[in-house]
Structures are given as structure tokens and as C-alpha cells.
């Protein structure tokens, strides 16, 4: 153990040196720019402060995005132009249409249920007394700390199927059998419900996130507003619908869109649970499959572009919402 630590000491030292060097250079630059007075000051400051991040965004984000778009118009080995063939494949091949449909189902169902569950739970938690609230919230938030792959491995065991004649290993099957069903189905093969079983994992993870964020914003609602509502005679449910929800509307939308974007990118769950088989594939999983398993770079890139285009309006909406929130305060 100590040997491993000693061996890696130089690495940490190099890292430290690089960090110190980085901050030293930035510090000197900012200091130098600070010395300059007059007309050059403002443009120079903009270049110095914005330049590095602009450069990194260009190299790490803009350039790869442009390259991906270019590759999506080329064939599997990127040697010839094929026009819109790859996009044609995505929108006309029955298997790919199924992938798009599945993704659409994910987008519609998973974020709404996660957010709604999170909202209901946060209201319930808000009514709890003392330690109970903290414990309940921690327990629900816990799955958030597990990676999607880890969560999928756990749920794989939940959905595991064995013929009733053998000892059951699947929690779900065993529970159903306790309730008197003699022959539980092989859950993962139940189309189209298997898609929903996979979404359960996402919901399980994301509900905790929604709960914590929404709970904080419910707590931030001024007491007098709630008191006024009570005095006006608004009962629990009416208070929730007409006071609580409108008061946290902004946060609700941010939570919803954040989960939505996570859902659009969902890949780990599908890959771990089914590998995209049994009609459960989604765009991100198909993109990986086409690019890194079947080595069809053209189709993989086209799928990436489809995903990218689908995310743009969401991101735009999310940012606008965040800005509005900020300007309101």
C-alpha cells in the first residue's frame, strides 16, 4: 500500500506543479492586464478572460460537433459522400423507427413521473416532523449516488426470471408469486412493457434528485404567503395546486428539463439491461452500437446529430428559464 502511494507520489507532484503553474500564469496575466489603462483595457480584458474558455470550447465542443455533422454525410468508413442516406436509414428502417419511438416514450414518460413523484414526496416530506424528514429524504436521494450501470445491475437482479420450478432469484417475480401468481412472466421479454421496466430504473434514480431540489424550493416559499392562504380558507390540496406549485414553477421546469436531458442521453441502462435487444433500444444506445460495435461511423454520427438537434430546444428553454428566474430575484 505504502509502495503504491510512494510510486504515485511523483504523479501527484507533477499534477500539483501543473496546477500551481496554471494559476501562476493566469494570475500574472490578469495582473498584467490590470496594469494597462486607457482604451485598450476593456478589449484586452475580454480576450484574456474569455479567450481560454473560448479556445477550450472550440477544441472540445465546436470542432468535434462540426466533424460529427460532416461524418454523418459519409459512408461507414468515412471514405465517400452518401448524402442523406444515413438519415434516410434512421427514419425509414423499421428497427430504427422503433428506436425513435422508444426514445419518444422515454422522453414523455420518465421525466414526468420522476418530477411528479419528486414533487409529491417533497410535499409529504415537508409535513414530516424532526429527523423523520431528513431520514426519508436521504433514503430517497440515495439511488442518485449510484451510477446508472450500478443501478441497472441491481435492477437486473430485481427482474431476473427463473422457471417457478426452480428457486427464484428475481425479487419482482418472488413478490408476484407471494401474491398468488403461479407463473410470473419473463419481465424483460414483455414487449412493450419492458421499456417501462427500464424506465423504472431512471425514475428510481432521478426521483431523489427532483425531491431534494423541489423540497429546497418549497422550503423557500415565504411563510406569510402560506399563512395568508390558510387565512383565506385554502385547504391542503387547494393550497398545493394554487399556491405551492405556482410558487416553485421555475424550479419545477428546471428539474423537469434537467431530467429530460438525462433521459435523452440514456444509454447505460439500456446497454446493461438488454443491450438494446427485445425492442428496447434508444437513440444513444444505437449510436454507440453503430459506431463502436458495428463500426458504421456514418450512421452513428447521423444518430448523434439527431440527438443533438433534439436537445437544442430543451437547452435553450432551460437556459431561458434559468435567466428569467435570476432576473425575477
Amino acid at each position, binding site marked *: 500500500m505504502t509502495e503504491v502511494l510512494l510510486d504515485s*507520489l*511523483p*504523479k*501527484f*507532484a*507533477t499534477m*500539483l*506543479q501543473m496546477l500551481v503553474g496554471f494559476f501562476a500564469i493566469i494570475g500574472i496575466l490578469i495582473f498584467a492586464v490590470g496594469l494597462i489603462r486607457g482604451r485598450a483595457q476593456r478589449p484586452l480584458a475580454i480576450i484574456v478572460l474569455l479567450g481560454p474558455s473560448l479556445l477550450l470550447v472550440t477544441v472540445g465542443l465546436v470542432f468535434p460537433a462540426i466533424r460529427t455533422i460532416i461524418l454523418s454525410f459519409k*459512408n*461507414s*468508413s468515412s*471514405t465517400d459522400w452518401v448524402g442523406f442516406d444515413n438519415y434516410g436509414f434512421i427514419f425509414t428502417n423499421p428497427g430504427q423507427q422503433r428506436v425513435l419511438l422508444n426514445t419518444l416514450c422515454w422522453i414523455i414518460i420518465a421525466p414526468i413521473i420522476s418530477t411528479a413523484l419528486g414533487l409529491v414526496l417533497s410535499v409529504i416530506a415537508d409535513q414530516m416532523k424532526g429527523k423523520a424528514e431528513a431520514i426519508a429524504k436521504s433514503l430517497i436521494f440515495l439511488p442518485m449516488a449510484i451510477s446508472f450501470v450500478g443501478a441497472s445491475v441491481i435492477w437486473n437482479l430485481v427482474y431476473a*426470471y*427463473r*422457471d417457478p420450478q*426452480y428457486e427464484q432469484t428475481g425479487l419482482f417475480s418472488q413478490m408476484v408469486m407471494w401474491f398468488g401468481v403461479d407463473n410470473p412472466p*419473463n419481465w*424483460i*421479454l414483455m414487449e412493450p412493457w419492458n421499456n417501462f421496466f427500464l424506465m423504472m430504473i431512471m425514475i428510481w434514480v432521478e426521483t431523489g434528485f427532483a425531491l431534494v431540489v423541489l423540497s429546497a424550493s418549497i422550503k423557500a416559499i415565504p411563510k406569510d404567503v402560506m399563512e395568508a392562504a390558510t387565512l383565506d380558507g385554502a385547504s391542503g390540496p387547494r393550497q398545493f395546486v394554487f399556491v405551492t406549485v405556482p410558487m416553485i414553477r421555475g424550479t419545477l421546469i428546471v428539474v423537469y428539463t434537467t431530467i429530460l436531458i438525462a433521459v435523452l442521453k440514456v444509454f447505460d441502462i439500456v*446497454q*446493461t439491461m*438488454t*443491450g*438494446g*435487444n*427485445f425492442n428496447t433500444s434508444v437513440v444513444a444506445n444505437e449510436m*454507440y*452500437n453503430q*459506431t*463502436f*460495435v*458495428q*463500426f*458504421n461511423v456514418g450512421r452513428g454520427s447521423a444518430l448523434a446529430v439527431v440527438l443533438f438537434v433534439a436537445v437544442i430546444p430543451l437547452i435553450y428553454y432551460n437556459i431561458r428559464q434559468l435567466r428569467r428566474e435570476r432576473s425575477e430575484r
Partner: protein
Amino acid sequence: MRRSHKTTVAVLASLALVGSVAGCSGGDDGGDDATTAASEATMSAECAAYQDYAGHSGTTVDVYGSILSPESDSMETAWKEFEECTGIDIVYTGDNSFESQLPIRAQGGTPPDIAVIPQPGLIQRMATLATGTKAVPAPDEVKANIEANYSSSWVDYATVDGEFYGGPNSANMKTMVWYSPTAFAAAGYAIPTTWEEMMTLSDTIAATGKKPWCGGIGSGTATGWPATDWVEELVLSAKGGDVYDKWVAGDIKFNSPEINDVMNILDGWMRNPNYVNGGFGDVATIATTTFQDAGLPILSGECFMLQQAGFYGAQWPEGTKVDPDGGDVAAFYLPPYDASTGKPVIGGGEFFVAFNDRPEVQAVQIYFSTPEWPEARIPVATGWVSANKAVDQSLYTDPIDKLSAQYLTDPEALFRFDGSDLMPAAVGSGAEWTALTNWFNGTSTEETLAAIDAAWPTD
């Protein structure tokens, strides 16, 4: 208190600086002193065997592959003596996304000196890259060594447009069936040596109310690959090497009389509700069971046989005794469907392919092509088999390694490389996996074969 804290920080910082200077001064671990001095001239007695590779002292060859620790540790132990005697430092990097990273590195012009490529298809891609640094053909000595000691198909799989690119590293054999010697002995079953015997045995077991076979093809993105192995075993052993080669090349379609025939045989075996799926349930559970779990019911007596490659040995729980004489598990050679095809053997392996023809790289390549390399590697750890016929068979200690080596080096064996690795990726790593997975979930044979044919690239 505050003072002492400051001192600690200062000491730590200076230590870190010293450490980093040492770290930057280059990572040689004292390998080049006594031994390398001798390498230019004649080597010392214990290094005499490496005389042919002398003259490259102080050089470095970087090797890149998909083999990960602990297997790669055994490999590095095995070539340590070569490194010490020749002074060539072989630096190995294992990467579990090797297959997608290698093309990226080669296209970017920074390939490794030698790549350990597990798929002939990837050798072809590396040899015909349009941009970047291509693979270079192997030196003539390597070709001569491989031609002398390996069956000719190994040479063919590493040949692209008439140029030979590299010799094999390890080989694995897939044509085997795992079973429990204890369970067989207790029930009085004998190991079948013909296809008919195997089917009779299956019927006998099925009559007792148990399922003779178990299987699982789940494997994440690669779900379906074990099913492609079953098809390949049957194409080779029912139709012969000629049909196999044409099928792999795409000259015989999936939806052809030959492959339809093969699918019917497989239908009566691994899709037979009386035969499968021991320990799991109905036929469809083959699609949802991971290949890792597939054989475990053999240990609990709920299943009797599993067709799976030799490397399945790594999946048994710790403490499982692998021994044909009264062990918990062992394997027998999967009998051919049609005995007139000879001794069909399906397997795989990795090839050493160089991207550089520096003399030290070639020296390492030549060393890897000699029987001395497998003979250095085999004693280090079990689970590694060479198809080199000149290798001393008594070096193998594990019964599965022995069985694999016996068939892989048998001059009469009809060896073929795993077909799905040879087909275009859209088929062999795409449609064939998906379609066969669906086949076990109830899709008709006709629809399955048509779906695979439709994915075959047209350009």
C-alpha cells in the same frame, strides 16, 4: 502549533518537488546494466537462447492489446527473460476499448509498435487504412516460422492482399461441451463421441424430467454472440470447410438451403423445449440469461451440458474442481454432426501486427513467432493455449488447456476462425447477434435469416 503545520507543508512540498524530478528523469528500472553490456557481442550462458535477437539493447517496443490484468501480467512475466537478455524493453498497454481505439490511433498517425489484434477483420482494416499509419507486413522469418508450425488457416487469416501481417499469440478452442464428471458418473452417463450419441444422451436425460442443456447469450451490447458460435459449429461440422468459407465470405447467403438446414439442426438442439434451459426455464430464457451465468446450473445438477468455449473456465466459482476424473466440471470435444467432415474445430486467437519495421520491433515479432514464446508463457499461468504444433504439450497442466491444445495442434483438425469475427461488422457484430437473440425469443427461422441477409453491406 501553527508553526509546525507550516513546516510540514514545506517539507511535503519539497518532497513532492524532489519526487517529481525523479519521476521526470525517465522510467527505466535498472534493466540495462550488466546484461545489456553483453548483448552486443555474445550473450551469457543463460541468455544463449536469445543470441539471435542481440544488438538492440536500450530500445523500447510498445505493445498494445485488449488483454488486461491479470492475464497481461502473466504475459509480461513470460517475456521478462527476453527483455533482460536482449535489453529490449517491451512496454505493454492493455485497453478494454482496444478495438475502437486502435483504428483511432492508427488514423491519427500514432499507432503502437505492435498491436495484439483479436480479429482478422481488424487486421484487414489496419492493413488497408486510407489515412494515417498502416500496418506493415511481417518479416519473412515470421512468415516462415508460422508456416512451419501452424495449420495453414492461421496464415490465411493474417494475410491481406497477398501480404502476411503477423503470427498468432494465444489461441482458444470453442468446439467443446462443459459437463459435470461427478453428475455423469452418478447417473451412469458416458461421454458422447458422436452426434447421435449426444442426442440419445440428451433424450435419456430429458426422459428423467430434467433438462440436459443450458445456455445463455446475454452479454450487454454483444448479446447474441454465443448463439453465433452454435451456428458456426454446425455449419462447419454439418456442411464442411468449403461451405463455411463461402458462408463467411458472403457467397452463401444465410437464407440458403445449407444454412436453413443448419438452423433446423440447431432448432432441434438448443431451441428444443425438452432440452433447454436447465436451471432457468423455457427456451426464451436463453436470450435473457448472461453467458457468464449459463453454466452454473451444471454445478447444482439442474443442467448437464453447456456448449461454450474453453475460456468459459474463468466463469466457474472459486473452488470449483476442473478435472475429468471426478471433478465438479470438465469439458469434452463437441462431436461433429457429420463425421465425414473430419475433426472440425472452431476457435479464435490474437495476432501480433506491427505498424513499424524498426529492427527491434522485428526482433520482438520474430521471437513471438517461435515456439520458445509459447513455451515461456504456458508455465506462467493456466488458461493460455498456443496453436503452435512445435510446442511441448507436456507443459500444459490444466485439463481444458490440454484438450484445447490437443485439437488446435492436431494436423488432421479442420480449423476455422470464429465466423462472426470474419464477417462484416454490420453482420457479425450486429444483425446476426440481434436476429439470433430474437430467434430464441420466438422469431421464425425464415424471418431471422432474411433479417441477417438484409444487413449485409452492399458496397
